[in-house]
């Protein structure tokens, strides 16, 4: 690309003010000043729909809601902007911290939870939007004393190192094996391509998933 071309492009793309020093936003405006009326969002889906189906009745400020989490009804207070991930980690008492906050942008998989049977990124779900859904985190799959087949296989095959990505992988794979109990290696890779690990556990994550499938103990 010649300099002339670049000059041309710059002109073409910068119609008003070519100064590169004016790229920054000025004052960020905080939006915390909204009326903080409390609202109630219960776990009963129909009631919820009835309650919030009127456009004239928007929710804002602090909202009380009930989540169906790991087989329990859990009450908590969130803002509409609170993600499901933050809700269970930062708002729920006691918190559920198996799902990890890592990228907060739906690009790493560490926050994966199972929502109505499907793995989703809980950092890209609003808590107000998770009401009435059946939610399962890694804690809901098994405990240290009573691990599910995938969890056991992860331990046996060393499918973890620092362990921060592990809940996401375990959750994703547990959900996947329910859908496809007898996957090939390529299918396992495809199933967990939305989960990222930095320590480098992938080969053994794959081994663990295949071993869990072979043992027929996904759940």
């Amino acid at each position, binding site marked *: 690309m010649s300099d002339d071309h670049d000059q041309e492009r710059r002109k073409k793309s910068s119609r008003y003010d070519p100064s590169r020093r004016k790229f920054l936003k000025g004052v960020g405006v905080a939006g915390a000043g909204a009326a903080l009326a409390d609202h109630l969002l219960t776990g009963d889906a129909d009631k919820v729909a009835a309650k919030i189906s009127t456009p004239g009745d928007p929710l804002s400020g602090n909202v009380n809601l009930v989540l169906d989490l790991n087989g329990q009804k859990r009450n908590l207070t969130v*803002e509409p902007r609170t993600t499901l991930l933050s809700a269970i980690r930062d708002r729920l008492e006691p918190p559920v911290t198996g799902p990890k906050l890592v990228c907060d*942008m739906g690009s790493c*998989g560490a926050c994966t939870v199972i929502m109505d049977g499907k793995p989703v990124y809980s950092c*890209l779900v609003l808590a107000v939007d998770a009401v009435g859904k059946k939610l399962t985190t890694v804690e809901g799959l098994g405990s240290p004393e009573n691990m599910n087949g995938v969890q056991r296989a992860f331990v046996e095959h060393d499918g973890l190192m620092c362990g921060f990505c592990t809940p996401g992988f375990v959750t994703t794979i547990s959900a996947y094996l329910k859908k496809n109990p007898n996957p090939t290696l390529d299918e396992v890779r*495809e199933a967990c391509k939305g989960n990222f690990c930095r320590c480098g556990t992938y080969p053994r994550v794959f081994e663990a998933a295949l071993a869990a499938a072979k043992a027929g103990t996904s759940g």
Partner: protein
Amino acid sequence: MNTFEWVSPGTVAEAISALKSAPAASDLDDAARPIAGGQDLLTTMKDYITRPVRVVNLKGIRGLDKIEADGKGGLRIGALVTLAQLEEHAIVRRNFPGLSEAAHSVGTPQIRNLGTVGGNLCQRPRCWYFRLEEVVCLKKGGTECYAATGENKYHAIFGGGPSYIVHPSDLAPMLVALGASVSVVGAEGKRAIPLDKFFTLPSEGNLRRENVLKNDEIITEVQVPASKFAAHSTYLKFKERDSMDFAMSAVAAAVAIGPNKTIREARLVLGGVAPVPWRVTKAEGYLAGKTPSVDVLTHTAKIALEGAEPLAKNKYKVPLTQTLVRRALARVGGVRT
């Protein structure tokens, strides 16, 4: 993310009314936004690229989450149909294979479980200048497209200027190739828009948007007509990182096969190379009536990339896209390369 009001209407009319009646916004990107899967919208909100005063949840609207045959061999796809649903749908797989492939190529399983067809078409650009919270570029109401002379490896080689974004949707090129249209409902009523008229170039429309949707309009449905192309369709997406990535370049190809395996007619739409799905009609025309061979496909690919204007760091997109055109056509035309 800024605070917002959350509204969850039960009907399309209520949704439109909720969008229209939202508190006044000082900037286009502060205006009320509809949310479906939220897989892109929430990322833009977290980065303060959009700061809607009100978010209108469409998922409570019944009937928009179905894939139905239109009775004439075509499809009606509700805007709330998830990418996972679309990808796995038996009729889509059988009769519109390219569409299933395009859906499969999006993001990750987690994203496809929530991301919707409507949302995929309306997602915002992935340009890294655009996505940086602190940078007010042309598309955010600023005065400059920093990609023009900056780090433009992933940017447009067609249709650029004054902004050089590429459209990130994988469904869009395939749906344009299949001649799809969208139903759009807004305060002023309902309209059907052919998808190739839905997306707008930076030079011809509102620079701050990538399509013709108004603030109080939502997509309710995508119609894919019966066509002689659909059965021989494919979507080839090239990612720098296979596990999760947007297209560095992509090709949606669909052909109608004539007698003796000739190509009667073709549709070729490029993705990841322009601010809109980039249809290459001259290449389509060249291909019509030809018996596909390596030479024919190579020449088609050459024509498809004619007129490309690469930036300083994306010249590679020309040979890359030529390869994808050849391979996509070889797949649908039954040629071994």
